[in-house]
């Protein structure tokens, strides 16, 4: 199964400024399918938790002003929740949405803003996700929380850290 899958390659993470995180990744599929997989609840449930947890909820109201929310249970029983609001929706090409990690007080006051773009060439799609964090302090807190985690729970917490920056 896994060996038969056409892989798009490896993700490249860069930090363009003090408060931005950018991920670029190519997929062996046209952009309308990447968009579909990114925005359809039943499909999100199949990939967003990767192999580390089960996505129990994926709610997506895909329109400007519409809300989204994901809830996942990690293998260690840790619940991870995220939500946000769509600011721009251009089908198959571009999404702009806020993203808040649930469980940190005041998260909704100053959410991260994610800009997702899909560009297609020769049947392959390049996905770029640019996360704008609200401040350097928030960024440092995210990194620090990752560092203070012991090895035992590192995987869960790193996942938590990672998804908080989608």
């Amino acid at each position: 199964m896994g060996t038969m899958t056409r892989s798009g390659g490896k993700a490249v993470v860069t930090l363009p400024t003090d408060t931005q995180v950018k991920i670029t990744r190519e997929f062996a599929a046209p952009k309308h399918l990447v968009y579909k997989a990114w925005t359809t609840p039943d499909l999100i449930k199949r990939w967003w938790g990767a192999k580390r947890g089960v996505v129990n909820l994926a709610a997506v109201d895909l329109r400007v002003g519409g809300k989204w929310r994901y809830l996942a249970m990690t293998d260690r029983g840790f619940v991870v929740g995220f939500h946000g609001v769509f600011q721009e929706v251009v089908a198959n090409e571009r999404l702009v949405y806020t993203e808040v990690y649930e469980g940190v007080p005041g998260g909704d006051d100053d959410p991260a803003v994610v800009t997702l773009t899909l560009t297609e060439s020769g049947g392959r799609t390049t996905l770029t996700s640019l996360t704008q964090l609200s401040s350097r302090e928030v960024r440092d807190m995210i990194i620090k929380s990752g560092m203070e985690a012991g090895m035992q729970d590192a995987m869960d917490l790193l996942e938590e850290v990672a998804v908080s920056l989608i």
Partner: protein
Amino acid sequence: MPRARTTTDAFNAVAEPRRRQILDALAAGERPVNDLVLLLGVAQPHVSKHLRVLREVGLVDVRDEGRRRIYRLNGRSLKPIHDWVKNYERSWNERFAALDEVLDDLTKKEEGDGHHDA
């Protein structure tokens, strides 16, 4: 618990791919600039520019040995951020691998349907 050292300055210095290459090259030990130029296959002015950035934020130290400038990693300031970026990349690679499988299914399904609704 004491407050963690701020990562503000070193943050984007680490995640520029070319600078990460330099840091990885220095991980094995100190090196003169010329070695880095050879290892990276990049013109010396570019390497020097990246080294300057890394030095300004304290990620590398430099010493003079005759006419040569020798650079070395300052691992303590580097590790937390470097680790974080790598872990972040790893979690996303796992997630994208799962997404590859979904896309594979969608592609096959679409081919089976015999139409393309792009």
